[in-house]
């Protein structure tokens, strides 16, 4: 069972929900927010393996290249350019698709690999933790996310997704059997939640909503859930104490009151996402 935790808007509590639910469910925790992975700050795993994430890029053999420009014309990403009698590569624009190699009549193109990030795996609090980290100044996070999710283990996997609704999240959702959407009761939270709901609906998987910083009122998110017939998994009440524990990088699940909240959420998630 792979459960994606996403939000649309950033900073609504994806990591808080995923780390604490992972503890409550004794699930594997996977941090897919590879641009800014924060889950390990809380779970503090002992990292036992570290692997580089490599992407391919073309290398042009100057002895064979006639600078005909066929590779430049075929590259959809403008990663190759012809300057005088040279072909230049802009590495960070290259998607490693291989189109240039296919069109080169002179066998002048081969591929080499370079590192754009890494995957770390470890054990923290008795659960398996893994995360991807994108190297700073690298634009493309998708290859790191794909590598991280390639061989998910059996059992329950909680996938802490990046914010937004574009390619990074699409790739994180690819293997999900269910989704938890985390939001907060504000106009911004609702606006971005609607976008996330639209995205999740494309996957035909069960999903439900968790309201973080809940004001204990019949707020706009609860009304939206009722109107749209979307399941509310549960709420995390707003509290200054919660904010302070979080700010210090502490696990909320260690605190008795919060443990009750997250155990209740995990029960709600089981009911809504329909797994045994």
């Amino acid at each position, binding site marked *: 069972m792979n459960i994606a935790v996403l939000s649309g808007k950033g900073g609504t509590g994806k990591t808080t929900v995923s780390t604490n639910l992972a503890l409550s469910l004794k699930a594997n925790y996977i941090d897919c927010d590879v641009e800014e992975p924060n889950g390990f700050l809380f779970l503090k795993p002992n990292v036992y393996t570290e692997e580089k994430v490599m992407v391919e890029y073309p290398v042009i053999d100057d002895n064979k290249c006639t600078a005909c420009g066929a590779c430049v014309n*075929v590259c959809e990403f403008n990663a190759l350019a012809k300057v005088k009698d040279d072909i230049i590569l802009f590495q960070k624009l290259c998607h490693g698709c291989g189109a240039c190699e*296919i*069109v080169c009549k002179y066998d002048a193109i081969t591929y080499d690999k370079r590192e754009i990030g890494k995957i770390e795996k470890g054990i923290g609090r008795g659960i398996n933790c893994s995360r991807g980290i994108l190297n700073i100044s690298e*634009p493309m996070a998708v290859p790191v996310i794909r590598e991280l999710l390639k061989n998910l283990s059996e059992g329950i996997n909680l996938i802490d997704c*990046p914010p937004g609704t*574009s390619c990074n999240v699409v790739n994180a959702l690819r293997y999900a059997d269910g989704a938890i959407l985390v939001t907060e009761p504000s106009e911004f939270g609702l606006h971005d939640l609607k976008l996330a709901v639209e995205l999740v609906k494309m996957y035909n998987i069960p999903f439900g909503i968790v309201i973080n910083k809940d004001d204990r009122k019949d707020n706009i998110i609860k009304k939206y859930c009722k109107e749209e017939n979307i399941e509310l998994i549960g709420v995390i009440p707003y509290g200054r104490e919660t904010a302070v524990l979080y700010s210090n990088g502490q696990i909320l699940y260690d605190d008795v009151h919060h443990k009750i909240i997250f155990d209740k959420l995990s029960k709600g998630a089981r009911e809504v996402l329909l797994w045994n």
Partner: protein
Amino acid sequence: MELVVLSGKGGTGKTTIATALAELEKDVIRIDCDVDAPNLYLFYKGKDIEKGEFIGGKKASIDEALCIKCGKCESICRFHAIENFTINQFICEGCGACTLICPQNAIKLIDEKTADTFVTELDKGIISRAEMDIGSDGSGKLITYLRKNGKRFNENEKLTIIDGSPGIGCAVISSITGADAVLVVTEPTKSGLEDLMRVVVLCEHFGVFTMICINKYDINEEMVAEIENFINDKDLKLVGKIPYDDTVMKSINELKPITHYKESTAEKAIEEMWSNMKSLI
């Protein structure tokens, strides 16, 4: 002058602060580069004076009448986007390798609309913004376009304020490339600091002048001290410390910029920050 508001971590207050700075300066160009979660326009009842469709990339499409199911496309696709002679639109990166290998010429690349773009006119100035099609990619290119679109309305070298995305990837890189200054909005939490560090290194890499403000600073004074140490070590400019203030949430829910609430302590701190920033930029 282009000023980009970033944060690394999401939800630290980029949009609230970007909007407040725009209101204080009044006649500015506003650009919402957080195309995944575009909230800036919610503060305004403007009029869309221009609309456009943005073609962000291409997707492969197989003509079933021509396909002989040889499977060459499947084996050439490095993204594993083709399965059972069908292209998964979510995974296809539009590279065209399959079109080159197909012996039947059955595959074509088709332009993909990824967003609607808008220029919204306000009482003063405009917003350049977009509504992205859900699940589409290529937000980096879209951001470059939104910045260009805004520039067309910038006579007299007005200030441009860019509300950026969280993270450090292509969306953020496209927002800061060629910009004059960055304001990073952080919060006194472990995650806030960790993400601040990553976004600051990115700004250094691109050589952009970087200022920092700590939002909701009174939530955790010890974390503030850690952030201040980092700022001093890096020789960055701390331009403001904004207190936690319930009025900010009120302003979001009433969809009015925080500058409308003159009694707000956060508003006062932002005003003070803006005068600090003006002396630097």
